[in-house]
Protein backbone atom coordinates (compact mmCIF):
# COMPACT_ATOMS: atom_id res chain seq x y z
CA UNK A 1 0.00 0.00 0.00
CA UNK A 2 2.17 2.85 1.21
CA UNK A 3 5.85 3.01 0.50
CA UNK A 4 8.08 2.09 3.36
CA UNK A 5 10.77 4.68 3.76
CA UNK A 6 13.61 3.42 5.84
CA UNK A 7 16.32 5.82 6.76
CA UNK A 8 18.69 3.81 8.86
CA UNK A 9 21.75 4.95 6.89
CA UNK A 10 21.05 8.59 7.65
CA UNK A 11 24.32 9.88 9.18
CA UNK A 12 22.49 12.46 11.25
CA UNK A 13 20.33 9.95 13.06
CA UNK A 14 21.03 9.59 16.73
CA UNK A 15 22.72 6.44 18.03
CA UNK A 16 19.57 5.50 19.94
CA UNK A 17 17.61 5.27 16.71
CA UNK A 18 20.42 3.53 14.88
CA UNK A 19 20.55 0.67 17.34
CA UNK A 20 16.99 -0.06 16.57
CA UNK A 21 17.02 -0.76 12.88
CA UNK A 22 13.64 -2.40 12.56
CA UNK A 23 11.83 0.66 13.92
CA UNK A 24 11.51 3.74 11.79
CA UNK A 25 9.56 6.01 14.08
CA UNK A 26 10.30 7.21 17.51
CA UNK A 27 7.67 9.14 19.37
CA UNK A 28 9.24 10.79 22.35
CA UNK A 29 12.67 9.35 23.04
CA UNK A 30 13.80 6.25 21.23
CA UNK A 31 14.81 4.44 24.39
CA UNK A 32 11.94 2.65 26.09
CA UNK A 33 10.86 4.27 29.27
CA UNK A 34 9.63 2.57 32.38
CA UNK A 35 6.23 4.28 32.28
CA UNK A 36 5.68 2.92 28.79
CA UNK A 37 6.23 -0.61 30.01
CA UNK A 38 3.98 0.07 32.96
CA UNK A 39 1.13 1.48 30.86
CA UNK A 40 1.33 -1.29 28.28
CA UNK A 41 1.59 -3.86 31.06
CA UNK A 42 -1.50 -2.55 32.83
CA UNK A 43 -3.29 -2.53 29.48
CA UNK A 44 -2.24 -6.12 28.89
CA UNK A 45 -3.59 -7.17 32.28
CA UNK A 46 -6.91 -5.49 31.45
CA UNK A 47 -7.04 -7.26 28.07
CA UNK A 48 -6.34 -10.70 29.48
CA UNK A 49 -8.36 -10.45 32.71
CA UNK A 50 -11.69 -11.54 31.19
CA UNK A 51 -10.10 -14.75 29.92
CA UNK A 52 -8.34 -15.49 33.18
CA UNK A 53 -11.46 -14.77 35.20
CA UNK A 54 -13.53 -16.97 32.87
CA UNK A 55 -11.13 -19.91 33.16
CA UNK A 56 -10.84 -19.64 36.96
CA UNK A 57 -14.55 -19.13 37.55
CA UNK A 58 -15.53 -22.10 35.41
CA UNK A 59 -13.78 -24.20 38.05
CA UNK A 60 -15.80 -22.72 40.92
CA UNK A 61 -18.98 -24.20 42.34
CA UNK A 62 -22.20 -22.35 41.57
CA UNK A 63 -22.40 -20.66 44.98
CA UNK A 64 -18.91 -19.25 44.71
CA UNK A 65 -19.59 -17.72 41.30
CA UNK A 66 -22.49 -15.88 42.90
CA UNK A 67 -20.52 -14.94 46.01
CA UNK A 68 -20.30 -11.29 46.97
CA UNK A 69 -17.58 -10.10 47.26
CA UNK A 70 -16.29 -12.20 44.37
CA UNK A 71 -13.25 -14.42 44.68
CA UNK A 72 -10.39 -14.49 42.19
CA UNK A 73 -8.88 -17.87 42.94
CA UNK A 74 -11.40 -20.71 43.36
CA UNK A 75 -11.66 -21.64 47.03
CA UNK A 76 -12.90 -25.08 46.08
CA UNK A 77 -11.95 -26.48 42.73
CA UNK A 78 -14.63 -28.44 40.95
CA UNK A 79 -15.09 -29.90 37.50
CA UNK A 80 -18.84 -30.25 37.96
CA UNK A 81 -19.56 -27.45 35.48
CA UNK A 82 -17.73 -29.32 32.78
CA UNK A 83 -19.24 -32.70 33.60
CA UNK A 84 -22.63 -31.04 33.47
CA UNK A 85 -21.73 -29.62 30.08
CA UNK A 86 -21.28 -33.16 28.82
CA UNK A 87 -24.19 -34.77 30.64
CA UNK A 88 -26.95 -32.17 30.68
CA UNK A 89 -26.15 -30.73 27.29
CA UNK A 90 -25.16 -32.61 24.19
CA UNK A 91 -21.83 -30.87 24.11
CA UNK A 92 -19.95 -33.40 21.89
CA UNK A 93 -22.68 -32.94 19.28
CA UNK A 94 -22.33 -29.13 19.29
CA UNK A 95 -18.58 -29.47 19.07
CA UNK A 96 -18.84 -31.88 16.13
CA UNK A 97 -21.29 -29.60 14.34
CA UNK A 98 -19.01 -26.58 14.70
CA UNK A 99 -16.04 -28.63 13.49
CA UNK A 100 -17.85 -30.16 10.50
CA UNK A 101 -19.18 -26.80 9.34
CA UNK A 102 -15.83 -25.06 9.82
CA UNK A 103 -13.86 -27.77 7.99
CA UNK A 104 -16.11 -27.76 4.93
CA UNK A 105 -16.38 -23.98 4.80
CA UNK A 106 -12.59 -23.71 5.03
CA UNK A 107 -11.94 -26.32 2.32
CA UNK A 108 -14.46 -24.69 0.01
CA UNK A 109 -12.93 -21.26 0.44
CA UNK A 110 -9.41 -22.54 -0.10
CA UNK A 111 -10.33 -24.25 -3.37
CA UNK A 112 -12.78 -21.78 -4.91
CA UNK A 113 -11.09 -18.57 -3.79
CA UNK A 114 -7.63 -19.62 -4.94
CA UNK A 115 -9.04 -20.59 -8.34
CA UNK A 116 -10.77 -17.28 -8.89
CA UNK A 117 -7.88 -15.42 -7.26
CA UNK A 118 -5.51 -16.95 -9.80
CA UNK A 119 -7.77 -15.97 -12.71
CA UNK A 120 -8.04 -12.41 -11.39
CA UNK A 121 -4.30 -12.11 -10.81
CA UNK A 122 -2.80 -13.68 -13.87
CA UNK A 123 -5.31 -14.08 -16.71
CA UNK A 124 -6.47 -11.08 -18.66
CA UNK A 125 -9.93 -12.44 -19.38
CA UNK A 126 -13.12 -10.97 -20.71
CA UNK A 127 -15.24 -9.51 -17.90
CA UNK A 128 -12.45 -9.51 -15.32
CA UNK A 129 -12.77 -5.87 -14.30
CA UNK A 130 -16.49 -5.87 -13.59
CA UNK A 131 -16.54 -9.30 -12.00
CA UNK A 132 -13.82 -8.18 -9.61
CA UNK A 133 -15.70 -5.00 -8.79
CA UNK A 134 -18.92 -6.90 -8.08
CA UNK A 135 -17.22 -9.51 -5.90
CA UNK A 136 -15.36 -6.86 -3.89
CA UNK A 137 -18.46 -4.69 -3.67
CA UNK A 138 -20.35 -7.40 -1.80
CA UNK A 139 -17.79 -7.26 1.01
CA UNK A 140 -19.49 -4.12 2.26
CA UNK A 141 -22.97 -5.62 2.35
CA UNK A 142 -23.85 -6.49 5.93
CA UNK A 143 -24.76 -10.09 6.64
CA UNK A 144 -28.14 -9.10 8.02
CA UNK A 145 -29.28 -7.76 4.60
CA UNK A 146 -29.09 -11.29 3.31
CA UNK A 147 -30.62 -12.92 6.38
CA UNK A 148 -34.25 -12.97 5.27
CA UNK A 149 -33.85 -13.87 1.56
CA UNK A 150 -31.18 -16.41 2.35
CA UNK A 151 -33.47 -18.04 4.87
CA UNK A 152 -36.32 -18.07 2.35
CA UNK A 153 -34.01 -19.57 -0.27
CA UNK A 154 -32.61 -22.21 2.05
CA UNK A 155 -36.05 -23.20 3.28
CA UNK A 156 -37.33 -23.44 -0.32
CA UNK A 157 -34.41 -25.76 -1.05
CA UNK A 158 -35.44 -27.80 1.99
CA UNK A 159 -32.09 -27.21 3.67
CA UNK A 160 -33.25 -25.70 6.97
CA UNK A 161 -31.68 -27.58 9.86
CA UNK A 162 -29.18 -29.42 7.66
CA UNK A 163 -25.40 -29.24 7.40
CA UNK A 164 -25.79 -28.18 3.77
CA UNK A 165 -27.88 -25.21 4.88
CA UNK A 166 -25.20 -24.24 7.40
CA UNK A 167 -22.29 -24.65 4.99
CA UNK A 168 -23.37 -23.68 1.46
CA UNK A 169 -23.86 -19.91 1.96
CA UNK A 170 -20.29 -19.56 3.26
CA UNK A 171 -18.49 -21.86 0.85
CA UNK A 172 -17.14 -19.05 -1.33
CA UNK A 173 -16.49 -15.66 0.24
CA UNK A 174 -15.17 -12.49 -1.42
CA UNK A 175 -12.56 -11.97 1.29
CA UNK A 176 -10.69 -15.12 0.22
CA UNK A 177 -10.69 -14.08 -3.41
CA UNK A 178 -9.22 -10.72 -2.48
CA UNK A 179 -6.52 -12.26 -0.31
CA UNK A 180 -5.53 -14.88 -2.90
CA UNK A 181 -5.52 -12.38 -5.73
CA UNK A 182 -3.20 -10.08 -3.80
CA UNK A 183 -0.81 -12.90 -3.09
CA UNK A 184 -0.80 -14.47 -6.56
CA UNK A 185 -0.34 -11.05 -8.23
CA UNK A 186 3.02 -10.81 -6.49
CA UNK A 187 4.25 -14.09 -8.00
CA UNK A 188 6.39 -13.57 -11.12
CA UNK A 189 4.66 -13.89 -14.50
CA UNK A 190 7.71 -15.72 -15.85
CA UNK A 191 6.73 -18.83 -13.89
CA UNK A 192 3.45 -19.01 -15.74
CA UNK A 193 5.03 -18.20 -19.12
CA UNK A 194 7.55 -20.97 -18.54
CA UNK A 195 4.73 -23.37 -17.83
CA UNK A 196 2.90 -22.30 -20.96
CA UNK A 197 6.02 -22.73 -23.09
CA UNK A 198 6.40 -26.22 -21.68
CA UNK A 199 2.90 -26.89 -22.90
CA UNK A 200 1.03 -27.01 -19.61
CA UNK A 201 -2.64 -26.11 -19.68
CA UNK A 202 -4.03 -23.36 -17.45
CA UNK A 203 -5.30 -25.80 -14.87
CA UNK A 204 -2.01 -27.64 -14.70
CA UNK A 205 -0.15 -24.36 -14.25
CA UNK A 206 -2.51 -23.47 -11.42
CA UNK A 207 -2.36 -26.83 -9.67
CA UNK A 208 1.33 -27.60 -10.07
CA UNK A 209 3.04 -24.21 -10.17
CA UNK A 210 0.84 -21.64 -8.46
CA UNK A 211 -0.83 -23.57 -5.64
CA UNK A 212 2.41 -24.94 -4.13
CA UNK A 213 3.76 -21.39 -4.02
CA UNK A 214 0.59 -20.17 -2.30
CA UNK A 215 1.07 -22.16 0.88
CA UNK A 216 1.56 -19.10 3.12
CA UNK A 217 -1.53 -17.39 1.72
CA UNK A 218 -3.56 -20.58 1.89
CA UNK A 219 -2.48 -21.05 5.50
CA UNK A 220 -3.59 -17.53 6.39
CA UNK A 221 -6.88 -17.86 4.54
CA UNK A 222 -7.48 -21.29 6.05
CA UNK A 223 -6.91 -20.13 9.61
CA UNK A 224 -8.99 -16.97 9.24
CA UNK A 225 -11.85 -18.82 7.54
CA UNK A 226 -11.83 -21.56 10.15
CA UNK A 227 -11.92 -19.02 12.99
CA UNK A 228 -14.63 -17.04 11.26
CA UNK A 229 -16.78 -20.11 10.79
CA UNK A 230 -16.15 -21.37 14.32
CA UNK A 231 -17.25 -18.03 15.74
CA UNK A 232 -20.10 -17.44 13.29
CA UNK A 233 -23.38 -16.92 15.07
CA UNK A 234 -26.28 -15.25 13.27
CA UNK A 235 -26.74 -17.70 10.41
CA UNK A 236 -26.44 -20.92 12.47
CA UNK A 237 -28.82 -19.34 15.00
CA UNK A 238 -31.43 -19.00 12.27
CA UNK A 239 -30.87 -22.18 10.27
CA UNK A 240 -30.16 -24.72 13.00
CA UNK A 241 -33.59 -25.26 14.49
CA UNK A 242 -33.07 -28.55 16.30
CA UNK A 243 -30.56 -29.18 19.01
CA UNK A 244 -28.57 -31.75 17.05
CA UNK A 245 -27.57 -29.09 14.52
CA UNK A 246 -26.63 -26.32 17.00
CA UNK A 247 -23.10 -25.05 16.71
CA UNK A 248 -21.22 -24.11 19.87
CA UNK A 249 -21.96 -20.36 19.87
CA UNK A 250 -25.65 -21.00 19.18
CA UNK A 251 -25.90 -23.53 22.00
CA UNK A 252 -24.04 -21.18 24.32
CA UNK A 253 -26.25 -18.21 23.46
CA UNK A 254 -29.50 -20.13 23.75
CA UNK A 255 -28.48 -21.55 27.11
CA UNK A 256 -27.47 -18.20 28.51
CA UNK A 257 -30.48 -16.16 27.41
CA UNK A 258 -33.96 -16.36 28.90
CA UNK A 259 -35.04 -19.09 31.28
CA UNK A 260 -31.79 -21.02 31.11
CA UNK A 261 -29.69 -18.16 32.33
CA UNK A 262 -29.63 -19.18 35.95
CA UNK A 263 -27.01 -21.90 35.67
CA UNK A 264 -23.96 -19.66 35.82
CA UNK A 265 -21.39 -22.43 36.08
CA UNK A 266 -22.70 -24.11 32.95
CA UNK A 267 -22.57 -20.83 31.03
CA UNK A 268 -18.97 -20.19 31.99
CA UNK A 269 -17.90 -23.76 31.24
CA UNK A 270 -19.57 -23.40 27.85
CA UNK A 271 -17.74 -20.13 27.22
CA UNK A 272 -14.45 -21.84 28.07
CA UNK A 273 -15.29 -24.65 25.65
CA UNK A 274 -15.95 -22.18 22.82
CA UNK A 275 -12.98 -19.94 23.52
CA UNK A 276 -10.27 -22.40 24.62
CA UNK A 277 -9.67 -24.15 21.26
CA UNK A 278 -9.52 -20.81 19.47
CA UNK A 279 -7.11 -19.25 21.96
CA UNK A 280 -4.93 -22.35 21.76
CA UNK A 281 -4.84 -22.22 17.95
CA UNK A 282 -4.19 -18.50 18.13
CA UNK A 283 -1.26 -18.83 20.53
CA UNK A 284 0.35 -21.45 18.27
CA UNK A 285 -0.32 -19.71 14.96
CA UNK A 286 -0.45 -16.08 16.10
CA UNK A 287 2.22 -14.93 13.64
CA UNK A 288 0.18 -16.07 10.63
CA UNK A 289 -3.07 -14.78 12.03
CA UNK A 290 -1.76 -11.32 12.89
CA UNK A 291 0.08 -11.16 9.56
CA UNK A 292 -3.13 -12.03 7.76
CA UNK A 293 -5.01 -9.27 9.53
CA UNK A 294 -2.20 -6.81 8.87
CA UNK A 295 -2.15 -7.47 5.13
CA UNK A 296 -5.88 -7.60 4.59
CA UNK A 297 -7.27 -5.75 7.53
CA UNK A 298 -10.34 -7.92 7.76
CA UNK A 299 -11.17 -10.49 10.36
Amino acid at each position, binding site marked *: *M*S*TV*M*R*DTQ*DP*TSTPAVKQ*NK*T*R*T*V*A*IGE*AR*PQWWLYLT*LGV*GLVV*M*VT*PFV*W*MALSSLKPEAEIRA*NPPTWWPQTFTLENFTELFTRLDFPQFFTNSAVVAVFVTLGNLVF*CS*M*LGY*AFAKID*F*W*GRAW*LFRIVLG*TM*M*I*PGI*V*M*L*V*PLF*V*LVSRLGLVDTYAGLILPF*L*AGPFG*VFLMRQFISALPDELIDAGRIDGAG*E*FRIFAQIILPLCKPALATLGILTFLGSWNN*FLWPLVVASSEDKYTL*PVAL*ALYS*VGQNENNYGLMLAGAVAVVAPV*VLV*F*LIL*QKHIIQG*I*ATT*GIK
Partner: protein
Amino acid sequence: MATSTAARVPAPADSPGRGAAPVRRSTPLRRRRSIAAWGFAAPFVLLFLVFTAWPVISSLLMSVTDIKSRDLQNPFNVNFVGLDNFATVLADPLFWQAARNTGYFVVVGVPVVMFVSLMVALALNTGITRLSGFFRVGYFMPVVTSIVAVAVVWRFLLKDDNGIINVVLGWFGIDGPNWLGDPNWSMPAMILMAVWRSMGTLIVIFLAGLQGVPASLHEAAALDGANAVQRLRLITVPIMRPTLLFGAVLTGIGYLQLFEEPLVMTNGGGPLNSTLSVSLYIYRQFGFGNYGIASAMSYLLFLAIVLLTLLQFRLLTERDPRPRRKARQTTEREGSAR
Protein backbone atom coordinates in the same frame (compact mmCIF):
# COMPACT_ATOMS: atom_id res chain seq x y z
CA MET B 1 -0.75 12.20 -31.07
CA ALA B 2 1.72 13.27 -33.77
CA THR B 3 -0.41 12.26 -36.72
CA SER B 4 1.60 14.05 -39.38
CA THR B 5 4.82 12.34 -38.38
CA ALA B 6 3.11 8.99 -38.20
CA ALA B 7 1.83 9.42 -41.74
CA ARG B 8 5.27 10.13 -43.11
CA VAL B 9 7.33 7.72 -41.10
CA PRO B 10 5.78 4.29 -40.76
CA ALA B 11 6.22 2.78 -37.31
CA PRO B 12 8.95 0.17 -37.23
CA ALA B 13 7.54 -3.32 -37.42
CA ASP B 14 9.37 -4.47 -34.30
CA SER B 15 8.30 -1.52 -32.14
CA PRO B 16 7.09 -3.04 -28.90
CA GLY B 17 3.59 -2.37 -27.82
CA ARG B 18 2.11 0.22 -30.18
CA GLY B 19 0.48 -2.10 -32.71
CA ALA B 20 0.49 -5.24 -30.61
CA ALA B 21 -2.57 -4.62 -28.45
CA PRO B 22 -5.31 -4.62 -31.09
CA VAL B 23 -3.87 -7.75 -32.67
CA ARG B 24 -3.62 -9.56 -29.33
CA ARG B 25 -7.23 -8.80 -28.45
CA SER B 26 -8.57 -10.95 -31.23
CA THR B 27 -6.22 -13.89 -31.03
CA PRO B 28 -7.69 -17.34 -30.43
CA LEU B 29 -5.12 -17.68 -27.65
CA ARG B 30 -6.71 -14.82 -25.78
CA ARG B 31 -10.16 -16.29 -26.29
CA ARG B 32 -8.91 -19.65 -25.04
CA ARG B 33 -7.52 -17.97 -21.92
CA SER B 34 -10.83 -16.21 -21.32
CA ILE B 35 -12.59 -19.55 -21.41
CA ALA B 36 -10.00 -21.06 -19.05
CA ALA B 37 -10.38 -18.11 -16.68
CA TRP B 38 -14.15 -18.48 -16.58
CA GLY B 39 -13.55 -22.16 -15.89
CA PHE B 40 -11.62 -21.12 -12.80
CA ALA B 41 -14.28 -18.62 -11.86
CA ALA B 42 -17.25 -20.91 -12.46
CA PRO B 43 -17.57 -22.67 -9.08
CA PHE B 44 -17.18 -19.43 -7.16
CA VAL B 45 -19.47 -17.46 -9.45
CA LEU B 46 -22.15 -20.13 -9.27
CA LEU B 47 -22.15 -20.16 -5.46
CA PHE B 48 -21.86 -16.38 -5.46
CA LEU B 49 -24.88 -15.93 -7.73
CA VAL B 50 -27.07 -18.28 -5.69
CA PHE B 51 -26.02 -17.39 -2.16
CA THR B 52 -24.96 -13.74 -2.41
CA ALA B 53 -26.21 -11.99 -5.55
CA TRP B 54 -29.68 -13.48 -5.50
CA PRO B 55 -30.27 -12.78 -1.78
CA VAL B 56 -29.16 -9.17 -2.20
CA ILE B 57 -31.52 -8.64 -5.12
CA SER B 58 -34.35 -10.61 -3.60
CA SER B 59 -33.99 -8.66 -0.36
CA LEU B 60 -34.66 -5.52 -2.34
CA LEU B 61 -37.67 -7.17 -3.98
CA MET B 62 -39.02 -8.36 -0.62
CA SER B 63 -38.71 -4.89 0.84
CA VAL B 64 -41.50 -3.69 -1.48
CA THR B 65 -43.86 -6.58 -0.73
CA ASP B 66 -45.94 -7.63 2.25
CA ILE B 67 -44.22 -11.03 2.46
CA LYS B 68 -44.55 -12.79 5.81
CA SER B 69 -43.23 -16.10 7.06
CA ARG B 70 -46.49 -17.90 6.31
CA ASP B 71 -46.18 -16.94 2.63
CA LEU B 72 -43.31 -19.40 2.32
CA GLN B 73 -45.96 -22.06 1.78
CA ASN B 74 -47.98 -19.99 -0.63
CA PRO B 75 -45.88 -17.52 -2.63
CA PHE B 76 -48.91 -16.22 -4.58
CA ASN B 77 -50.19 -14.55 -1.46
CA VAL B 78 -47.51 -11.89 -1.66
CA ASN B 79 -48.56 -8.40 -2.75
CA PHE B 80 -46.60 -5.46 -4.03
CA VAL B 81 -46.89 -2.62 -1.52
CA GLY B 82 -44.45 -0.08 -2.91
CA LEU B 83 -42.62 1.87 -0.27
CA ASP B 84 -45.14 1.08 2.48
CA ASN B 85 -42.64 -0.99 4.44
CA PHE B 86 -40.14 1.85 4.46
CA ALA B 87 -42.88 4.24 5.58
CA THR B 88 -43.92 1.83 8.34
CA VAL B 89 -40.33 1.45 9.52
CA LEU B 90 -39.64 5.18 9.47
CA ALA B 91 -42.83 5.83 11.46
CA ASP B 92 -41.93 3.22 14.08
CA PRO B 93 -40.56 4.91 17.21
CA LEU B 94 -38.86 1.68 18.25
CA PHE B 95 -36.89 1.67 14.99
CA TRP B 96 -35.72 5.21 15.72
CA GLN B 97 -34.70 4.15 19.19
CA ALA B 98 -32.73 1.26 17.68
CA ALA B 99 -31.16 3.68 15.20
CA ARG B 100 -30.27 6.10 18.03
CA ASN B 101 -28.74 3.30 20.09
CA THR B 102 -26.70 2.09 17.14
CA GLY B 103 -25.66 5.64 16.29
CA TYR B 104 -24.57 6.23 19.89
CA PHE B 105 -22.52 3.05 19.75
CA VAL B 106 -20.79 4.12 16.51
CA VAL B 107 -20.34 7.83 17.25
CA VAL B 108 -18.84 7.24 20.69
CA GLY B 109 -17.28 3.82 20.13
CA VAL B 110 -15.30 4.44 16.92
CA PRO B 111 -13.37 7.53 18.09
CA VAL B 112 -12.66 5.94 21.48
CA VAL B 113 -11.30 2.72 20.04
CA MET B 114 -9.35 4.59 17.33
CA PHE B 115 -7.70 6.83 19.93
CA VAL B 116 -6.84 4.07 22.39
CA SER B 117 -5.54 1.79 19.63
CA LEU B 118 -3.40 4.53 18.12
CA MET B 119 -1.88 5.27 21.51
CA VAL B 120 -1.07 1.60 22.11
CA ALA B 121 0.34 1.24 18.58
CA LEU B 122 2.55 4.31 19.10
CA ALA B 123 3.75 2.90 22.41
CA LEU B 124 4.47 -0.49 20.87
CA ASN B 125 6.32 1.24 18.04
CA THR B 126 8.57 3.22 20.35
CA GLY B 127 11.08 0.46 20.59
CA ILE B 128 10.02 -2.18 23.06
CA THR B 129 11.38 -4.60 20.52
CA ARG B 130 11.83 -7.67 22.64
CA LEU B 131 8.43 -7.53 24.30
CA SER B 132 6.28 -5.98 21.59
CA GLY B 133 5.41 -9.39 20.10
CA PHE B 134 4.27 -10.51 23.52
CA PHE B 135 2.16 -7.39 24.02
CA ARG B 136 0.70 -7.65 20.55
CA VAL B 137 -0.48 -11.21 21.17
CA GLY B 138 -2.16 -10.14 24.41
CA TYR B 139 -3.92 -7.16 22.88
CA PHE B 140 -4.96 -9.19 19.86
CA MET B 141 -6.37 -12.20 21.69
CA PRO B 142 -9.96 -10.90 22.09
CA VAL B 143 -10.24 -10.42 18.32
CA VAL B 144 -10.13 -14.11 17.49
CA THR B 145 -12.60 -15.27 20.11
CA SER B 146 -16.34 -15.82 19.69
CA ILE B 147 -18.37 -12.69 20.43
CA VAL B 148 -21.04 -14.86 22.04
CA ALA B 149 -18.58 -16.42 24.45
CA VAL B 150 -16.95 -13.14 25.45
CA ALA B 151 -20.37 -11.53 25.79
CA VAL B 152 -21.32 -14.25 28.27
CA VAL B 153 -18.14 -13.53 30.23
CA TRP B 154 -18.63 -9.76 30.14
CA ARG B 155 -22.11 -10.24 31.52
CA PHE B 156 -20.45 -11.42 34.70
CA LEU B 157 -17.70 -8.80 34.65
CA LEU B 158 -20.32 -6.03 34.39
CA LYS B 159 -22.55 -7.29 37.19
CA ASP B 160 -23.81 -4.69 39.60
CA ASP B 161 -23.00 -6.37 42.89
CA ASN B 162 -20.12 -8.79 42.39
CA GLY B 163 -18.82 -7.93 38.93
CA ILE B 164 -15.07 -7.49 38.73
CA ILE B 165 -15.34 -4.10 37.03
CA ASN B 166 -17.35 -2.55 39.84
CA VAL B 167 -15.10 -4.20 42.42
CA VAL B 168 -12.04 -2.62 40.79
CA LEU B 169 -13.85 0.73 40.56
CA GLY B 170 -14.59 0.33 44.26
CA TRP B 171 -10.85 0.22 45.02
CA PHE B 172 -10.69 3.78 43.76
CA GLY B 173 -13.72 4.77 45.75
CA ILE B 174 -16.01 4.82 42.71
CA ASP B 175 -19.48 3.40 43.15
CA GLY B 176 -19.90 1.59 39.84
CA PRO B 177 -23.26 1.74 38.07
CA ASN B 178 -25.59 -1.16 37.45
CA TRP B 179 -24.13 -1.42 33.96
CA LEU B 180 -26.51 -3.81 32.25
CA GLY B 181 -29.57 -2.96 34.32
CA ASP B 182 -29.54 0.81 33.98
CA PRO B 183 -30.78 2.21 30.65
CA ASN B 184 -28.22 5.03 30.90
CA TRP B 185 -25.29 2.68 31.36
CA SER B 186 -26.16 -0.26 29.14
CA MET B 187 -24.78 1.29 25.94
CA PRO B 188 -21.55 2.48 27.58
CA ALA B 189 -21.18 -1.11 28.76
CA MET B 190 -21.51 -2.33 25.16
CA ILE B 191 -18.91 0.23 24.07
CA LEU B 192 -16.54 -0.82 26.82
CA MET B 193 -16.67 -4.39 25.64
CA ALA B 194 -16.48 -3.48 21.95
CA VAL B 195 -13.37 -1.36 22.52
CA TRP B 196 -11.76 -4.24 24.37
CA ARG B 197 -12.64 -6.60 21.56
CA SER B 198 -11.69 -4.60 18.49
CA MET B 199 -8.52 -2.87 19.70
CA GLY B 200 -6.29 -5.69 18.50
CA THR B 201 -7.20 -5.37 14.83
CA LEU B 202 -6.66 -1.62 14.83
CA ILE B 203 -3.35 -1.87 16.70
CA VAL B 204 -2.02 -4.30 14.09
CA ILE B 205 -3.21 -2.12 11.20
CA PHE B 206 -1.78 1.04 12.80
CA LEU B 207 1.55 -0.67 13.52
CA ALA B 208 1.80 -1.56 9.83
CA GLY B 209 0.97 2.05 8.92
CA LEU B 210 3.56 3.45 11.33
CA GLN B 211 6.26 1.61 9.40
CA GLY B 212 5.63 4.08 6.59
CA VAL B 213 6.41 7.14 8.73
CA PRO B 214 10.06 8.10 8.13
CA ALA B 215 12.08 8.63 11.28
CA SER B 216 14.10 11.40 9.60
CA LEU B 217 11.02 13.65 9.55
CA HIS B 218 10.60 13.20 13.28
CA GLU B 219 14.25 13.94 13.87
CA ALA B 220 14.14 17.06 11.76
CA ALA B 221 11.03 18.24 13.56
CA ALA B 222 12.58 17.45 16.92
CA LEU B 223 15.63 19.52 15.99
CA ASP B 224 13.30 22.36 15.13
CA GLY B 225 11.88 22.07 18.62
CA ALA B 226 8.59 20.27 17.97
CA ASN B 227 7.37 18.31 20.97
CA ALA B 228 5.92 14.81 20.86
CA VAL B 229 2.30 15.95 20.57
CA GLN B 230 3.13 18.39 17.77
CA ARG B 231 5.04 15.72 15.88
CA LEU B 232 2.14 13.28 16.30
CA ARG B 233 -0.33 15.86 15.00
CA LEU B 234 1.79 17.31 12.20
CA ILE B 235 3.79 14.31 10.97
CA THR B 236 2.45 10.94 12.07
CA VAL B 237 -1.27 11.56 11.66
CA PRO B 238 -1.08 13.19 8.18
CA ILE B 239 1.17 10.45 6.84
CA MET B 240 -1.02 7.77 8.37
CA ARG B 241 -4.21 9.32 7.04
CA PRO B 242 -4.97 6.45 4.60
CA THR B 243 -4.36 3.89 7.34
CA LEU B 244 -6.49 5.80 9.84
CA LEU B 245 -9.27 6.10 7.26
CA PHE B 246 -9.12 2.40 6.57
CA GLY B 247 -9.31 1.61 10.28
CA ALA B 248 -12.18 4.02 10.86
CA VAL B 249 -14.23 2.69 7.94
CA LEU B 250 -13.60 -0.90 8.95
CA THR B 251 -14.56 -0.28 12.57
CA GLY B 252 -17.53 1.89 11.63
CA ILE B 253 -18.96 -0.80 9.35
CA GLY B 254 -18.47 -3.39 12.06
CA TYR B 255 -19.99 -1.26 14.82
CA LEU B 256 -23.08 -0.41 12.75
CA GLN B 257 -23.88 -4.11 12.74
CA LEU B 258 -23.91 -4.46 16.54
CA PHE B 259 -25.87 -7.63 17.26
CA GLU B 260 -24.40 -10.41 19.39
CA GLU B 261 -23.39 -8.28 22.35
CA PRO B 262 -26.84 -6.87 23.21
CA LEU B 263 -28.52 -10.17 22.37
CA VAL B 264 -26.42 -12.16 24.80
CA MET B 265 -25.52 -9.57 27.43
CA THR B 266 -28.91 -7.95 27.82
CA ASN B 267 -31.25 -10.75 26.74
CA GLY B 268 -32.03 -9.12 23.43
CA GLY B 269 -32.70 -5.46 24.02
CA GLY B 270 -31.82 -4.47 27.55
CA PRO B 271 -33.77 -2.37 30.02
CA LEU B 272 -36.41 -0.26 28.19
CA ASN B 273 -34.91 -1.42 24.87
CA SER B 274 -31.87 0.68 25.68
CA THR B 275 -29.52 -1.69 23.87
CA LEU B 276 -31.84 -2.61 21.01
CA SER B 277 -29.66 -2.20 17.91
CA VAL B 278 -30.89 -1.99 14.33
CA SER B 279 -29.56 -5.48 13.56
CA LEU B 280 -31.25 -6.82 16.65
CA TYR B 281 -34.54 -5.19 15.68
CA ILE B 282 -34.26 -6.68 12.18
CA TYR B 283 -33.72 -10.06 13.77
CA ARG B 284 -36.74 -9.49 16.02
CA GLN B 285 -38.94 -8.58 13.02
CA PHE B 286 -37.64 -11.66 11.22
CA GLY B 287 -38.63 -13.70 14.26
CA PHE B 288 -42.15 -12.21 14.14
CA GLY B 289 -42.30 -13.35 10.49
CA ASN B 290 -42.44 -9.79 9.09
CA TYR B 291 -40.07 -10.49 6.22
CA GLY B 292 -40.97 -7.41 4.18
CA ILE B 293 -40.42 -5.07 7.11
CA ALA B 294 -37.17 -6.81 8.04
CA SER B 295 -35.90 -6.45 4.46
CA ALA B 296 -36.75 -2.76 4.36
CA MET B 297 -34.88 -2.21 7.63
CA SER B 298 -31.91 -4.18 6.29
CA TYR B 299 -31.67 -1.84 3.33
CA LEU B 300 -31.86 1.21 5.57
CA LEU B 301 -28.96 -0.22 7.58
CA PHE B 302 -27.05 -0.90 4.38
CA LEU B 303 -27.68 2.67 3.27
CA ALA B 304 -26.33 3.91 6.60
CA ILE B 305 -23.18 1.83 6.09
CA VAL B 306 -22.62 3.25 2.61
CA LEU B 307 -23.22 6.82 3.85
CA LEU B 308 -20.87 6.39 6.79
CA THR B 309 -18.17 5.03 4.51
CA LEU B 310 -18.53 7.95 2.08
CA LEU B 311 -18.56 10.43 4.96
CA GLN B 312 -15.41 8.98 6.45
CA PHE B 313 -13.67 9.13 3.08
CA ARG B 314 -14.65 12.79 2.81
CA LEU B 315 -13.58 13.68 6.33
CA LEU B 316 -10.27 11.93 6.22
CA THR B 317 -9.14 12.68 2.67
CA GLU B 318 -10.11 16.33 2.22
CA ARG B 319 -6.67 17.59 3.21
CA ASP B 320 -4.92 15.20 0.89
CA PRO B 321 -5.78 16.18 -2.69
CA ARG B 322 -3.43 13.68 -4.31
CA PRO B 323 -4.29 12.89 -7.92
CA ARG B 324 -5.91 9.52 -8.33
CA ARG B 325 -3.58 7.06 -9.89
CA LYS B 326 -5.09 5.10 -12.72
CA ALA B 327 -2.82 2.17 -13.36
CA ARG B 328 -3.89 0.77 -16.68
CA GLN B 329 -2.45 -2.66 -16.93
CA THR B 330 -2.18 -2.70 -20.72
CA THR B 331 -0.15 0.48 -20.93
CA GLU B 332 2.09 -0.73 -18.13
CA ARG B 333 2.83 -4.01 -19.78
CA GLU B 334 3.34 -2.65 -23.26
CA GLY B 335 5.61 0.17 -22.23
CA SER B 336 4.90 3.84 -22.76
CA ALA B 337 3.07 4.59 -25.98
CA ARG B 338 4.74 7.97 -26.34
